[in-house]
């Protein structure tokens, strides 16, 4: 309407991470903070393990594999969440979309196996479950992009809807899957590496590519930093947001399928405790909740930090409740570092 406010107001986005190779040392360290956390944690547990049990923690392949399996579902949710948070939004419905997909996958695979045979039924069930997971994502996208509902509220509504539908479809219990191929997928290995870890790693690579190398990813950063600028540059924000939340649904859908494979059962509450872990992984990984910054590899580190804390505390026989406390502390420290970094990179370079 009248004049726009001067440019000096408001928050300054910290840098996105892909294009800029010449950052200051402080920024580099801040960007790597999740990996540094991870290294420190591993060293800590290693020392504890050697002094308390006289054995190694991290050089034990069993531990590494367990941590990786632990990290699969939270990481899949967190990759989608990374995109959403960079755009300046949040997706609270992912946990129950994951549950919904797990239940759908279980039902469809059971139903299809007699006619299609086990492997085809698994493929078919996976596709159907991911497709179904796209529906709540699509609705989230419509709410946020067309109806201008704040993401926090819109996806909170979808949290409830997906939860209810998932429990209804599951009949209030878990849905066991009888399918040897699916069980092998969920628990088998290839060259010693669990299949679900391989699938997750490949998927995460694709997501990294989309975020760092495509227009979609570039626009996602721009929208998160300055939506008005993105609109003026001719970016179709509505279309972008719609596709963004669908992508987030796909991530949750895949997480649900892999959950069902691992436990050979679909459960509506499969992702219930994972939503917070996924947001935590993104934040620990260096993304800003204000939008505009973050990377997939940062999120990978964030998810591993959480998995190492959870598994490591069990490993050293500490009461499990310490997990919550330590993850909480790490989240708070990460946000504090983010704010310090924002203050530093907010200072303009003089000529």
């Amino acid at each position: 309407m009248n004049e726009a406010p001067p440019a000096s107001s408001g928050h300054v986005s910290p840098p996105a991470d892909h294009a800029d190779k010449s950052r200051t040392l402080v920024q580099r360290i801040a960007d790597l903070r999740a990996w540094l956390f991870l290294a420190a944690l591993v060293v800590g547990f290693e020392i504890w393990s050697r002094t308390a049990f006289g054995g190694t923690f991290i050089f034990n392949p069993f531990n590494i594999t367990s941590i990786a399996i632990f990290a699969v579902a939270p990481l899949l949710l967190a990759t989608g969440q990374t995109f959403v948070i960079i755009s300046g939004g949040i997706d609270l419905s992912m946990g129950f979309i994951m549950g919904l997909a797990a239940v759908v996958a279980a039902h469809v695979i059971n139903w299809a196996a007699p006619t299609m045979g086990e492997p085809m039924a698994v493929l078919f069930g996976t596709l159907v479950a991911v497709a179904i997971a796209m529906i709540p994502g699509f609705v989230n996208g419509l709410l946020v992009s067309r109806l201008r509902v704040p993401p926090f509220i819109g996806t909170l509504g979808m949290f409830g809807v997906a939860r209810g539908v998932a429990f209804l479809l599951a009949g209030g219990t878990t849905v066991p899957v009888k399918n040897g191929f699916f069980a092998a997928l969920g628990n088998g290995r290839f060259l010693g590496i669990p299949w679900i870890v391989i699938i997750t790693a490949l998927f995460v690579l694709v997501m990294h590519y989309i975020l760092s190398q495509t227009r979609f990813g570039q626009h996602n950063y721009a929208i998160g930093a300055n939506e008005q600028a993105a609109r003026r540059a001719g970016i179709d924000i509505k279309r972008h947001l719609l596709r963004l939340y669908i992508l987030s649904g796909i991530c949750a859908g895949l997480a649900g399928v892999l959950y069902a494979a691992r436990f050979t059962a679909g459960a509506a509450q499969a992702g219930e405790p994972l939503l917070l872990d996924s947001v935590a992984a993104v934040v620990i990984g260096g993304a800003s909740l204000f939008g505009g910054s973050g990377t997939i590899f940062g999120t990978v580190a964030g998810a591993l930090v959480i998995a190492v804390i959870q598994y490591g505390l069990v490993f050293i026989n500490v009461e499990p409740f310490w997990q919550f406390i330590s993850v909480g502390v790490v989240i708070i420290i990460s946000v504090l570092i983010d704010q310090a970094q924002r203050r530093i990179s907010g200072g303009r370079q003089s000529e």
Partner: protein
Amino acid sequence: MSDQPLLETRHLSKNFGPVQALSDLSMHVNAGEVVALAGDNGAGKTTLIKAISGVYRPSSGQVLLKGREVSFSSPQEARESGIETIYQDLALADNLSIGANIFLGREPMTKKFGFLPVLDRKKMADAARSTMALLDFHVNRLDAPVSNFSGGQRQAVAIGRAVYWNAQVLIMDEPTAALGVPEQRKVISLIHQLKAQGRGVIFISHNLQDIFAVSDRIVVLRRGVMAGERRISDTSHDEVVKLMVGG
């Protein structure tokens, strides 16, 4: 061709309900000319440039580009025809590099390993380097996000984007308002560059010093109507102020 103005408005009016924000305004800009828009708050300066650049549809009157009538339904359309508006809040994505900002919304792609489409960051960086050099503006960190740069440098990025996409008419709403004095000088010299390149510039300013430093003509608005138009060489601060306040 040269006797035809680059951009012209004829009897342009715009009302918001009962509020007549702009009435019967005729003005023009020639190629290689800088025209300043002055006037008190609420005089209709912003309304005028928004009516030219496709943000508002004029209630009546015409906009002509190189003699041909145009009617833009969005700023994108105006931009595609070569009219670029540079807003006060700059419209940059702070977290992206200069090159990424220049290409925002129309990023160039290339192929990696011969098949995988990826953003062409080299092309973006090269364009950023050459465009900023064209504006005689040298930044040493081309890959850094623009949040690292000063206000004047960011203004240069916004102008550089327009220049890269070959805008013929640049419209700037108070380009120096948020800047310190040395930075204001930089922007003034940028406007000189644009003029030397044969582009037309319309800029709004409250700062008479800036206006007298860089423009060829001044158009003064008062309550939505033309209060006067002067060649800079034929007028004075005092006269302009009188036109602005009336009486």
